[in-house]
């Protein structure tokens, strides 16, 4: 019937038991996708520019900032990057990441299990302490970390860069949350079979924690690969520079020349590729959003 508003039409349709969803106008759908695409461009375009500009000459980069396609493809920036200590930075980043990730996974899962499953006096206090610690803003720890590293004589050494990053209250929290969700019957069964506490943890419960462990690993990887400020205060010798601090020096301070964009962007690209690879490989763990029934 003409003359009805769409609302009234909907109400009438519902009363008459017809499908409740009013037909969505095509314009809405187009608008929706337009918004999605515009934002996708905003989020992705800088990375395209990064890759493209890394192959440009300095002049080209300044003259054509909007185009991700170089006028002439040159490898100038990469050869300059090679002249920097890039290989060393990469090695140091890998060393830090391996030890921090390994350490965090090991220590956080042990502590998480202990706090979730083992009854001992003081457990509550330890847990409260960990929560309290999570509240300390990382940035406040820059000077303090420097002080303790100096005091312990590990300033400007690899342990000095690794150990502060091993302190990770959030990881303990995550693992504890996970272990709390494991049904106690599994451990009881193992106990009945004669397994001791650690055996139960190591051989029975921990393997079940794969998703949580992988999440923890990915977060640790990201956190340590990308860390800048903590590594900055933990060392001063250029031979200990990781990718972040090494490239960081290219950008700030005296060595950050005015318009050497291709060099800087090539460095940025090189830093991002490993993280991107890890991200894409382990995407489903990271983007785990519990869609459940919703199909992609």
């Amino acid at each position, binding site marked *: 019937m003409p003359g009805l508003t769409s609302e009234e039409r909907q109400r009438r349709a519902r009363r008459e038991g017809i499908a409740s969803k009013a037909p969505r106008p095509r314009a809405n759908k187009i608008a929706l996708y337009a918004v999605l695409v515009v934002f996708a461009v905003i989020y992705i375009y800088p990375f395209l520019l990064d890759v493209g500009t890394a192959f440009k000459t300095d002049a080209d980069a300044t003259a054509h900032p909007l185009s991700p396609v170089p006028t002439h493809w040159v490898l100038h920036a990469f050869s300059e990057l090679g002249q920097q200590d890039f290989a060393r930075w990469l090695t140091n980043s890998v060393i830090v990441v391996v030890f921090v990730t390994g350490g965090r996974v090991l220590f956080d899962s042990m502590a998480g299990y202990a706090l979730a499953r083992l009854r001992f006096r003081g457990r509550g206090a330890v847990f409260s302490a960990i929560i309290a610690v999570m509240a300390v803003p990382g940035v406040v720890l820059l000077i303090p970390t*420097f002080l303790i590293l100096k005091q312990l004589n590990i300033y400007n050494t690899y342990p000095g860069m690794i150990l502060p990053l091993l302190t990770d209250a959030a990881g303990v929290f995550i693992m504890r949350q996970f272990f709390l969700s494991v049904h106690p019957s599994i451990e009881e069964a193992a106990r009945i079979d004669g397994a001791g506490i650690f055996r139960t943890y190591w051989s029975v419960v921990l393997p079940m924690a794969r998703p949580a462990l992988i999440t923890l690993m990915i977060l640790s990887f990201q956190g340590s690969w990308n860390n800048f400020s903590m590594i900055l205060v933990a060392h001063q010798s250029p031979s200990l520079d990781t990718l972040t601090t090494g490239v960081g020096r290219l950008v700030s301070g005296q060595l950050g020349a005015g318009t050497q964009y291709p060099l800087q962007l090539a460095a940025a690209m090189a830093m991002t590729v490993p993280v991107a690879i890890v991200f894409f490989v382990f995407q489903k763990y990271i983007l785990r959003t519990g869609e459940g029934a919703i199909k992609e």
Partner: protein
Amino acid sequence: MNRKATLTALTALAAGLVTLTTACSSSNGFSSGNSATPASTAKASKTQLTLMFGSSGTAETNAVEAAAKAFTKQSGIPVQVIPASNLTQQVAQGFAGGQPPDVFYLDPLTFQNYAKDGVLDPYPPNLPSANGFSPALQQAFTYKSTFTCDPKDASTLALYVNTADWTQAGLGAPPATWSQLQADAKKLTTGGRVGLVIDQTHSGMDEFFYQNGGTVTNAAGTQVQIDSPQNVRALTFLKSMLTQGAMKLPSQLNAGFSGQAFGENKAAMDIIGNWENGEIQSDYPNIKFKVYPLPAGPSGTHATLSFTNCWGVPKQSRNLAGAIEFVKFLTTPQQEMTFAKAFGVIPSLQSAQQQYVQAFPQYSTFVQELPYAHPDIAIAGATQALSAFDSALAQLPSANPATILKTAQQNLQAVVDQNK
């Protein structure tokens, strides 16, 4: 058995970390705090030395590395050369971390801080070069009558002119007064290029204060006098050139410092020091330029700024004798002339200065200016106040000169008062 497994795992990780520590300690290992050799009379060991410096460009970096290699060949002591991205900060971090570089560039301002803290080794009197330096340079590095650090070179600000642009604009003699400078800068400003660029820091602008009869502090250094009508007039003059578009600051030209803008021909003239010579030689070889003395102020006063650095050696160096050996090597007339040829600085040894004038008649300007060169500001503890001053000067195109100077006066006087 379970506990053993835990313990094993933990021990393994701990062992790994310990191994890593010892394996990777090499020259970056544990802080050596107390183990510095007692006196400069100890024999130089073969422990690697670190040399940290702030480079003016590729030419300087190459020259310093070459000198280090030559020294290593001669003495057998390895040297690690570290161009700093922020020299003062990195040296400070070194001291705080107990591992300062064994030899480092030290400017007169930072020198005051370190000398006051008593961390520098007063080696100069023991070297053969002891009495060979320019008196003014020696003075800059003398603290409470102890000559504490060998000056490495000197530089003065002069006017660099791009000869191609100059001829193109049909100009004749270089500017000798402020008004001529302004007029020439205007003539040289074309579509893609500005007439004049200067550095947007006090080290790039203070010479105009002196040229106009102003000053920064009184002779005794107890009273800051940076807020004066003469200085306000000087800054106003600079601002007028900025407003006219005849002059621009490096940040307005997308350059990190004025020498870069000049080298890229974004500016036809540049007021900068002789270190720029090496920069142009290595990075901008196509620029043809001439160097002239700075124009005089309205009352005919000639003035420029002089800069110098010294070779700082910390008392706690792990190879103190070796570090002093290195400085001895670096402060010979031959080595100073090598540096001069490489990146254009004036030698600090008077004997070498004479060689310099003979070798580079075209750079005689710099030596010529030495008599009326004023040292750059060097008040102990003034780092933060000066960087705030620089921040404010960088905004000169849109800021009020009187306000800038008033704030600088307050901040610097507070520092001077603290030092009393």
